[in-house]
């Protein structure tokens, strides 16, 4: 043991492996740039550009001074809408992933740890959710009338309600993959000797889950969360595109393609920008997940 001065914590080792993965690092850079781009909406707004102001005389104006990418079909500035839309789409991506992910972890770890009837019941429930066709279900959930659920009229129509609605419904639909993953991992770890040692010392279910199971499934969870963000961003864009997600005037990369068929003939570039941004974001997120997976590869850890 002589010659080793500092402890090589598992996380330090993983960071080193990640740095070696070129596409993973590149994706991190790309995502950082994208976030910076979206944050550019703030200085732009300070300069007087309004994301929601319409000017029907300026419909489909080509790029010009003050409006670097031109105007959209309602006379709004395209560039700032791309930025604000990006903020919204990314926020939805992260929040829905976190919400659905936490729920999925809770279900998976409970089913895996306790086993027996509880496990069977939870898995039936999960399998039932998996059987549902995703997009139709999202559409129905997106079309729900909030007033029928008891919310006030004004709240139901507000932008905040629309935003949170889409976060919640995507979370409702997307937690199953994480639940299954967590359950499988929990089943494995539950049988490890160090868990048995803790139980022999009197550890209860909560302690074992928090102190042993969660830290040991952290790596596959992180990878799963990253990949989920990609899926969620795609789901939000489809929903908003179809009109059931983020509703104008609030921009989102998806709903900027709302009148796509019209755009294709009159202003094709406007149909390209939001899609390219979605595509680049999602592919970067997926490559990031791939890089993380390589860095966390359990075969290089023991």
């Amino acid at each position, binding site marked *: *043991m002589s010659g080793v001065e500092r402890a090589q*914590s*598992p996380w330090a080792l993983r960071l080193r492996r990640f740095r070696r993965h070129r596409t993973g690092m590149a994706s991190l850079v790309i995502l950082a740039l994208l976030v910076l781009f979206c944050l550019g909406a703030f200085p732009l707004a300070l300069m007087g550009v309004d994301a929601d102001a319409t000017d029907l005389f300026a419909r489909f104006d080509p790029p010009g001074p003050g409006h670097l990418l031109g105007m959209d079909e309602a006379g709004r500035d395209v560039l700032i809408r791309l930025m604000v839309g990006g903020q919204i789409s990314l926020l939805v991506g992260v929040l829905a992933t976190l919400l659905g992910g936490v729920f999925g972890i809770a279900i998976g770890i409970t089913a895996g740890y306790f086993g027996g009837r509880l496990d069977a019941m939870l898995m039936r429930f999960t399998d039932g959710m998996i059987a549902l066709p995703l997009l139709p279900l999202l559409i129905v959930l997106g079309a729900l009338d909030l007033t029928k659920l008891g919310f006030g009229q004004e709240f139901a129509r507000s932008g905040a309600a629309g935003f949170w609605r889409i976060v919640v419904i995507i979370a409702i639909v997307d937690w199953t993959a994480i639940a299954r993953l967590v359950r499988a991992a929990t089943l494995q770890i539950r049988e490890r000797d*160090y868990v048995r040692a803790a139980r022999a*010392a*009197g550890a209860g279910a909560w302690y074992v889950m928090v102190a042993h199971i969660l*830290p040991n499934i952290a790596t596959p969870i992180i990878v799963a969360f990253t990949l989920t963000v990609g899926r969620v961003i795609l789901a939000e864009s489809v929903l908003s595109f179809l009109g059931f997600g983020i509703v104008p005037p609030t921009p989102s990369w998806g709903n900027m393609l709302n009148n796509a068929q019209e755009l294709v003939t009159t202003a094709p570039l406007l149909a390209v920008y939001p899609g390219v941004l979605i595509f680049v974001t999602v592919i970067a997120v997926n490559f990031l997940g791939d890089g993380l997976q390589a860095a966390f590869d359990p075969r290089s*850890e*023991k």
Partner: protein
Amino acid sequence: MTALLALDDVSVHFPVRRQVVRAVQHVSLQIAPGETLALVGESGSGKSTLGYAVAGLQAPTEGRLFFEGVELTKSTWPAARSKIQIVFQDPFAALDPRMPVSEIIAEPLRIQRIGSEASRRARAAELVARVGLPLDALNRYPHEFSGGQRQRIAIARALSPAPRLIVADEPLSALDVSIQSQVLNLMKEVQEQERLSYLFISHDLAVVNHLVDRVAVLYLGRLVEIGPRAALFANPSHPYTQALLDSVPRIGRHRQRRAVIRGEMPSPLNPPSGCVFHTRCPKAQAVCSAEVPSLAPAGAAGHEAACHFKTETGA
């Protein structure tokens, strides 16, 4: 002196689909304070299951456990937890790879909420030195250590709540032969210093010879022979024990072929009727498949065997 640990007619059954695995059947035994009892048997004999039952990881289906005279029930187990600890076979699976050594060793204390964070750290430092590892090991992670070193860490962990009984489930089987004796010596040292008892589970009789005061032999979940080490090794009474001892190569001793055991151990899903060993026993007669033999004296004090035709020696 009351026994430290007493098992009274303990059985452990597992339902598997529509059948029942009878892992442990009607085992009664005792361990005195400061004593080492070896639990010996082949794989499938139920020794690990019994060890888990003693350590509180497996509830017995029937029978009772007594520790320090108190029956272990749901309400009394929590108090006993810190006094009964366990060391496992595979040092590579026994330590949480995400925790540094100091946390691993202090974990039983943390779970039992004994002491403060500072006192726990001090205890970990004390134990690390006790098991022969350098102090800087405290900040390292399991993957930086060899098998033998990891087993020492596991022993340190078991020692942290100052237990009175340690269940050692084949602690040497996964180690290199040269390391085995080191770890064994450590266990002996620790036992003397702390007045510990061990329930030492092993399939390796040669190892058992060094550390152990008494030996209990399990076959297919049943206790077939139990007695002081010297007596059992010199005059094994049960045919199974005799065959086990015959198979241990010893330099300078000529092989006494008493009798060869036929066949393989039956499945615990469907144990044979009467004496569980009768299907392979060279001495088997009609009564063996009909009646379960009970433990009866076989010569020396404390030496008992469960066999209708056991070899008895005059005391």
